[in-house]
């Protein structure tokens, strides 16, 4: 049963991927401008139109859309994502170099976010409409209304320059380099997540079994920790999956500020230089990772929520 479900899911993933790649190919095809022009941006000297036309012919950019798309797709199925126009290296190599740093950054940010957000959300919920709630909500407001580059630059300034606790830049891609960018990302997301935690806990608290348990004399702490929080975790887990998704796609600004090269900054560079193979490869990989993560979350749902186990 589970296996059939998995097959169905994988099929759906494949369909979605093809759909996404088609859409992105189409969009980029329609966008004015092309990689040949972008290559001369550095000098500002624009070569003659014939020269650029020749280069376009060589790169196969003048072939009809569907031919370009199907060529690319068939190569992908063989694992060949093409050669980057801006770096001259295989796209798959460039992407795989940055997958681990991206995952590291995303995971650490998620962990930090959870550590910050859950206590705040819980405190906020159980002390609803009292001082503690207002303070916590105030903190969440600060988090969600500060742009991430501001937080990042401020952190970098105080921790790196003034206090000299961590290096501003380093060649070592290890833990030290991760802390500040991860914290910046976590800070920005924690506010939103804390509010979701608050909402989920409040919903649980309103359920009948809670009043029932309290009436039976079970202590509040026990009810909170053994029942409310675990039950509230389920929807929060899904939201965690969504957060990971936005992390994978939206870390570019933080990456640039902290000189932490991961997929986000690669994407921006690819897009500004109209590096088609790299852009396509990036979109495909990100979508794939995202859907795999969602799949994992859905599967874990099955294990964590006994109600679904029986239902399946």
């Amino acid at each position, binding site marked *: 049963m589970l296996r059939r479900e998995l097959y169905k899911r994988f099929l759906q993933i494949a369909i979605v991927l093809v759909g996404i790649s088609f859409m992105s190919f189409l969009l980029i095809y329609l966008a004015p*401008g092309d990689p040949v022009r972008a290559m001369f941006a550095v000098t500002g000297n624009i070569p003659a139109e014939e020269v650029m036309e020749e280069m376009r012919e060589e790169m196969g950019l003048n072939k009809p859309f569907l031919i370009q798309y199907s060529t690319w797709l068939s190569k992908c199925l063989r694992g060949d994502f093409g050669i980057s126009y801006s770096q001259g290296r295989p796209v798959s190599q460039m992407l795989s170099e940055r997958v681990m740093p991206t995952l590291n950054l995303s995971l650490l940010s998620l962990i930090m976010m959870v550590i910050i957000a859950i206590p705040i959300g819980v405190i906020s919920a159980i002390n609803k409409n009292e001082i503690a709630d207002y303070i916590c909500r105030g903190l969440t407001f600060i988090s969600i209304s500060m742009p991430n580059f501001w937080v990042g*630059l401020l952190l970098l300034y105080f921790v790196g320059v003034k206090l000299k606790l961590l290096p501003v830049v380093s060649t*070592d891609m290890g833990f030290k380099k991760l802390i500040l960018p991860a914290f910046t990302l976590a800070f920005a997301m924690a506010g939103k997540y804390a509010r979701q935690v608050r909402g989920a806990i409040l919903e649980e608290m309103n359920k009948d079994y809670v009043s029932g348990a309290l009436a039976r004399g079970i202590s509040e702490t026990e009810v909170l920790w053994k029942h409310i929080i675990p039950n509230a975790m389920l929807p929060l887990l899904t939201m965690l999956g969504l957060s990971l998704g936005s992390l994978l796609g939206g870390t570019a600004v933080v990456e640039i500020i902290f000189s932490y090269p991961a997929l986000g900054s690669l994407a921006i560079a690819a897009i500004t230089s109209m590096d088609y193979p790299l852009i396509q490869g990036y979109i495909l990989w990100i979508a794939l990772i995202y859907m795999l993560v969602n799949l994992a979350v859905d599967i874990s749902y099955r294990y964590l929520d006994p109600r679904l186990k029986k239902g399946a």
Partner: protein
Amino acid sequence: MRKNYKFIALLLLISICSSILIACGDKKNKNSANGPHLNFGVYNYSDSLDPATNTNSSWCGVRYGVTEGLFKFSDEVIAEPNIADTYTVSEDYKVWTLHIREGVKFSNGNDVTPTAVKDSIERLYNQTDASRGGTGNSNPDGYLIYETITADDDEGTVTITCTSPTSNIPGILAYPYFSIIDVSVADKEIVGTGPYKVAKINNGVSIELLSNEYYWNGEVPYDSVTIMFIDDSSTKAMALKSGDIDIAENITTASDLRTLSEDENYYVSIAPGVRTGNSYINYEGVLGNETLRQAIMMALDKDTMCDITVAGMYTSGISVLPSSLSYNYDKLTNPYEFNKQAAIELLDDAGIVDTDGDGWREIDGKNIDINSVTFTSRNLNEFAEAVALQLAEIGIKVTVNIRDYDTALALLNAGEFDLWTCNTLTVGVGDPQDYLGNWYSANSQNYGYYSSEKYDELYEELMLELDNDKRKDIITQLQQILINDAATIVYGYYNSSMISRAEKITGADIATIDYYWLTSKIKPIGE
């Protein structure tokens, strides 16, 4: 029971994550060299240093002191002998014979023989020719097309026969495309003749360099150098202040540059470079009207724009060729000095006024609406905005259209603009002829359709003139024609900068032309 499951799963997840993080993180900074070390913060233009890959990578090879060419530019942007020490040229300027300096070796110990030079140049052309299977995107064809290239190891010379008479071979060969690398190992690594050699490339993060023990041109000051990629200008400034880097190139955030200039712990070297910021004018649009153009010239306060609006990132100027070059900038005159009142009067007298009371002047009954296209690079968008604001003050409407470089270029090619603001390297090969060609009527359909008989006449003379003094003279005249015709709006010349810690480093001066960053002139203090 369920809770235990979850707890274990969570623990497992955390331990997996932490082990990943720790495993990836324990590469200690191996500064194996015990001698002086330099940390250099740069913007990452390219991970590759191969001159054939593309323009950026060819420049980076030279910038990081790894590769060098047969010739090299001085600070007056004049090509001087480098790996080639002497040369002769045939009367028709087609056959150039270059003598390769004796004793020059690649950083891996191989000799730089004439054959090695010939191989390197041939490789460049092969790698960039798709019909021969090349995947490189550099464009050497745009600079030099040769019929034959031969090497004579006994004589120590390389002979290049050009397809057409070429007077500027030294300048062309100084261009980073033509850096000489060791072809025998080029598949695996880029080995050149510069003071430093590549030890390791960490894509996207850094490049580790070691000193080249076979360097032919003097002592190499540092034993090892780490080139750190920092794409954000504020972060670069902060890294300098925190001591994580000792030297940085081109800090472009004005306030950071100002703070560092005022701090005596840092040596800030600024040079007006060879890039001109200007706006091409579309003669086929409303700006074909001469009075309008002249009024516009007089309405723009270039000094304030360069000094204040872009906070000193440009040195203001009137000619399309930078003042730092040797083309008689001082002798040029400007008939359209900044004078807002005069601009208003000029327009009023010519009947270019606002008749329908909406605040904007009209020509032939239609509102003037200037389509100003530009892209975000080197403060160009700030110039476009400042121009729009100043022209609004004299009643001329400007719509600023900021796009990405690519789209902007498409609009330029399609002629869909009135003003096209950009920043151009004027003397890529040490000679402004190509750049001045943008106003030659055979080319100018790409840059606004400017056309002047006098200009064309002089330009055609320039194309054939091979005597340097006569060329200078023609170029001076060409500049003045463009100024008099108000053919283009010139803002100024982009300043390059290099900032270093004053107590640790000496000699960190930025070159006029931005091919050269890490040179052997940059030395540690007290070693």
